[in-house]
């Protein structure tokens, strides 16, 4: 076959892209799981959270989260009777081992579990320079560990502080909504281990999921709604002081 230099120059980049696609391989699949049939989110009932830290411990064990970093954590809020704009918040070691007794006698105390909001319009996926982080067709924000540059732009872009860079892997890490579990019909490690049922995995595309009835009959809120990220982490009983 005769090929001119110009044709070769056109062909080479195309061949490089094709080779990259071959090297990337095919994603791991779960039998009987169809991504297009699901749209995952989570419901957190703040009135039920007792701050025991089981969810944090379960997540760390399930996902081998390095010490000092968190895919999920629990915050304790103290809001005095009149000063809603200045809550006192603590989260010792992410609330992993529970909380010491509160030193406040006035106002109210409550716990707020936090994790990735799996936003449908997520700022973190928008800024990733190579598209290593993405929203899967079933609505879970994931990171391709073999592709992430470790530039940390996504960590800066997340308004909720849910991302970190793994000190060993040097790539961005975050809650995967236990994707390896939910695609096999299981619930997440944090939901599984919550003793009060404060966390409920929700499939927004499944008409039989109890989330629909709950959303219809309760006042729910998302964090920082003014940022318009279309968060899918719904809170029931969220106080206005929570950031």
């Amino acid at each position, binding site marked *: 076959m005769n090929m001119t230099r110009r044709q070769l120059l056109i062909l080479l980049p195309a061949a490089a892209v094709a080779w990259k696609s071959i090297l990337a391989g095919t994603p791991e699949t779960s039998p009987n799981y169809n991504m297009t049939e699901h749209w995952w989110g989570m419901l957190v009932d703040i009135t039920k959270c007792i701050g025991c830290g089981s969810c944090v411990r379960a997540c760390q064990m399930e996902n081998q989260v390095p010490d000092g*970093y968190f895919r999920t954590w629990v915050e304790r809020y103290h809001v005095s009777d009149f000063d809603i704009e200045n809550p006192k918040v603590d989260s010792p070691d992410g609330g992993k081992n529970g909380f010491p007794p509160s030193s406040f006698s006035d106002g109210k105390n409550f716990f707020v579990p936090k994790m990735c909001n799996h936003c449908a319009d997520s700022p973190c996926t928008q800024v990733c320079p*190579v598209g290593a982080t993405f929203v899967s067709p079933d609505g879970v924000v994931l990171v391709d560990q073999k*592709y992430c*540059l470790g*530039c*940390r*732009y996504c960590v800066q*872009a997340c308004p909720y502080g*849910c991302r970190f*860079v793994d000190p060993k892997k040097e790539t961005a890490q975050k809650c995967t909504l236990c994707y390896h579990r939910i695609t096999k019909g299981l619930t997440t490690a944090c939901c599984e281990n919550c003793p009060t049922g404060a966390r409920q995995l929700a499939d927004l595309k499944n008409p039989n999921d109890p989330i629909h009835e709950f959303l219809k009959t309760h006042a729910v809120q998302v964090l920082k709604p003014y940022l318009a990220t279309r968060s899918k982490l719904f809170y029931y009983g969220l106080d206005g002081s929570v950031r």
Partner: protein
Amino acid sequence: MQIPVEGFMYPNEVELQWSVLIVLYPFLTGLVAGAFILASLERVFMVKAVKPTYRLALLTALAFLIVAPLPLQLHLGHPERSFEMYLTPHRSSAMAMFGFVYLWYLLAVLVVEIWLDYRHDIVVMSQCTTGWKRLVYRALTLGSSNISERSLHIDERVGWLVTVIGIPSAFLLHGYVGFIFGSVKANPWWSSPLMPVVFLFSAMVSGIAIVLLLYMLMCRIRREPIDMGCVDTVAKYLFYTFIIDFSLEMLDLIHRIYEADESFRSLDFMVHTRLYLSQVVIQILLGTVLPILLIGATQVLKLAEKQRKWIYVVAGCLTMIGIFAMRWNVVIGGQLFSKSFLGYTTYKMGFATREGLLTAVVLTVLPFVILWVLVKLLPPWPEKNSALSSVAVAAHGAD
């Protein structure tokens, strides 16, 4: 290493993500854009007074542009994957465009303009030098040794066109760096449509100041008299650009204070505590107000040549410190407070680490080393060039 925290930070926020190397990145690209825009004054806007700085400004821009991506590479967790930005860029990411904007600016603007401007000299040098230098210059001719009047005229026309394209490219290069920060809606310290404009004007300020300083330094090293008409004109442009830059920054500040949204108390506290020295004292007072007053004095008072020289040196140095402090306050300052607005962390800079002080110092010195090599290879001095021309003519005559 325990990082001191005040108040409440989200647990993953305690450690800063972007280090001093990311401070260097906008600082270096700013110098590139600013130096190029100064060079374009002579080429496109026909400001003949700044001609002595034209070639020096181009070489300065190239030296800093070569080093500009290095802090980013060193910062990446996986620098070996950075090429993915070219192969599979994510089009919605501001950062993904860096590779393309950088390559465009380096290869389509700066290198082409320098080559066209120096082509005559390179051809002459390739004929009148010997040894390895001859090989280098012959390689730099790219096989074109035609320096007839007609071909030089074409070089001139094409060079002018490249400069015209280069001005918006320089704006794009640095405006886009500002957009990387300005478009992060999660961070109120960064999120501002003014950010690209502020970055652009501060880039022009720093680029003009560095060329002014380098020109005066090189005149001193070469024991040549400083062209005061040139430095006065450059200083005048520095003054006007500085006024615009300062006005924009103050506009941003006043807007934040007056609007006082939910982040204001947190940011205000930070400016009065952790950023007081670097922002209020170094950036605003020493690095902006003082140099503006100093250069302003040269504009309204009739000062002697020696006094003006000293003022330019002091104001230029203060400007560089002020612009570096501005980059520091944007990059580091933007990570010192929690996105919950309830707490503050601390930046602990390492010394001999990958992203430590030593690396930052090396990356700051490196452009000057590259500039020194470039100046040796491609002297920007007109008298050297005319001497070379005569040698070349003599050599042709001997042939």
